[in-house]
């Protein structure tokens, strides 16, 4: 056969050089949560990226200014809906800081148990979803199975799988159930086993590793200036974990390590999250050993804590206390305070301003993934289009929290 001689003009071979604009999201399988990235591409290279959030804005802060202090809990649930218990406890601790309350020991251990369960669920979801977006569906299914286990325990405790609304000012809604300790002792090894199985599939996979390593690198100093906290900051080598640096609840009494990464790339963020699940499991088992089986869960402070239902119906004091707390709300002392806890994604802060009435003057949430997503643009500019998916996945954006 004779070769086809096309005799093309030189000019016709030139590729179009104008940058191409591409909208990624807000409805895109890899943009879990709702985020839109407007990209300017040259070939497959990203010249410019504009990350746009706000598609899930629900006016959390405005709504909080309309109810009582206690009515914020259901809203707090819906911020980070993968680990709502951490938000509940974070908000409760913030109000308690203003009110000068310290919850009983049993409640502190209980809050730690529920919080660590939520953290495990958060990390399993994030790492699993990230692997799934890169095409690895099996580890996702296994890790979601692990999350299911966590949610079963939380359902047993709180009655709800996702939005528990279980925190209260000065305690929790209910004392721990009798089977909690057994559920955790049985559940934790299963979760760790599932974690290991999923890990085996991924961490020896050349394709997976190549897509993660040296992608989305950020230095510790840059990450700090951006306001990154949590696993993403620790992956960049900054060992800042609020549970260790400024222990709250009983975190100073349990033994755990703070895993940190070396390079600050996507792989490190992935590995740090996996390591943190193991640390959370360690904390859980210690908490189970140390949580007393009986004793009060709520503070004994009628200004903030609702009375027993039996007292409400049988005594006049109980009725009045209940009425005042429900109708007027607990009166939190006037002033301002910033309280911070370690959420699933990093420092979850609540800045509260009270005018001394039963309604918050201002509830400001400092969502950990807001600054983290703010740094996304920096991570993906001058990278390839396909790097967005693992990079974005490793940041663990939670729409409800990021968009308030």
């Amino acid at each position, binding site marked *: 056969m004779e070769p086809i001689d096309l005799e093309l003009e030189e000019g016709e071979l030139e590729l179009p050089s104008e940058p191409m604009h591409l909208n990624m999201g807000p409805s895109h399988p890899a943009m879990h949560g709702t985020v839109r990235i407007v990209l300017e591409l040259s070939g497959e290279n990203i010249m410019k990226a504009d990350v*746009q*959030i*706000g598609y899930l*804005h629900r*006016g959390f*802060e*405005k*709504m909080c*200014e*309309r*109810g*009582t202090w206690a009515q914020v809990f259901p809203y707090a649930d819906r911020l980070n809906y993968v680990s709502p218990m951490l938000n509940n406890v974070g908000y409760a601790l913030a109000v308690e*800081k*203003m009110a000068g309350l310290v919850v009983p020991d049993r409640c502190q251990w209980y809050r730690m148990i529920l919080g660590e369960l939520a953290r495990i669920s958060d990390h399993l979801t994030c790492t699993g979803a990230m692997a799934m977006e890169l095409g690895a569906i099996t580890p996702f299914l296994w890790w979601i199975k692990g999350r299911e286990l966590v949610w079963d325990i939380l359902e047993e405790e709180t009655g709800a799988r996702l939005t528990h609304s279980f925190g209260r000012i000065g305690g929790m809604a209910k004392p721990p159930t009798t089977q909690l300790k057994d559920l955790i002792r049985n559940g934790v090894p299963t979760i760790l086993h599932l974690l290991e199985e999923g890990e085996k599939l991924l961490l020896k996979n050349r394709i997976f590793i190549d897509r993660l390593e040296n992608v989305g690198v950020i230095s510790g*100093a*840059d990450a*700090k*200036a*951006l*306001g*990154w*906290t949590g696993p993403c900051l620790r992956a960049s080598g*900054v060992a*800042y974990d609020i549970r260790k*640096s*400024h222990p709250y609840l009983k975190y100073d009494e349990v033994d755990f390590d703070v895993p940190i990464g070396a390079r600050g790339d996507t792989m490190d963020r992935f590995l740090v999250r996996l390591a943190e699940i193991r640390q959370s499991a360690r904390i859980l088992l210690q908490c189970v050993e140390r949580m007393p089986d009986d004793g009060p869960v709520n503070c004994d402070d009628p200004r903030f804590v609702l009375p027993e239902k039996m007292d409400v119906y049988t005594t006049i004091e109980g009725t009045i206390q209940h009425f005042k707390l429900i*109708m*007027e*709300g607990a009166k939190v002392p006037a*002033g*301002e*305070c*910033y309280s*911070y806890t370690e959420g699933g994604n990093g*420092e979850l*802060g609540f*800045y509260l*301003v009270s*005018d001394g*009435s*039963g*309604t918050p*003057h*201002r509830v*400001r949430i*400092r969502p950990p993934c*807001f*600054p983290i*997503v*703010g*740094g996304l643009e*920096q991570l993906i500019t001058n990278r390839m289009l396909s790097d967005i998916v693992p990079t974005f996945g490793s940041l663990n954006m939670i729409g409800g929290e990021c*968009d*308030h």
Partner: protein
Amino acid sequence: MSKLVLEKLAAKLGDKLRETHSHFGDDTALVAPDAWHEAAQLLRDDPALDFDLFVDLCAVDYPSRAEGRFEVVLHLYSTTKRHRVRLKTRVGDEEGNGADLDTLTDVWSGANWFERETFDMMGVVFRGHPDLRRILMYPEFEGHPLRKDYAANHTQPLVPYRTEEDAGTILEKVAPFGTDEGMAFGRKWFERGPTS
């Protein structure tokens, strides 16, 4: 809590530091608006302070104040010295005008989105910000939703609500909140009604 941070600020800023307190154990410094950038720079660059982690920036609305209606609040942390500080300043008059402030994006890059959010929610303008757009609300949105005089039941739909003629039936549009809803004790701005 160490008083070091507040003492350092007092020594450097002089009378531009309006007041300090440590309520609930949070060290707080209120500075004059023109010392905002200077104070932030000092907090980051002084080796004894070394505030390297940008934590939070937001604004609080105090509608009753004639001068300095908006309080812009900055939270910082130092990962090396392990201390925190809250830096505040007051801007804007009673109507919310003249609320502008120097940007901190050149001090901490993380200030970028937080300043956009504060602008979006409260209408505080940051001078010198590279890209001061709305971030949570859509560009067509009018007003600043977290201001106390923005009624919570006020809506601004991008697509107009269906009218009864269009639908051919009676529609009762229920706003997510009524003005009489919630705990309105001691809240005077409810009585003003929606601002539209």
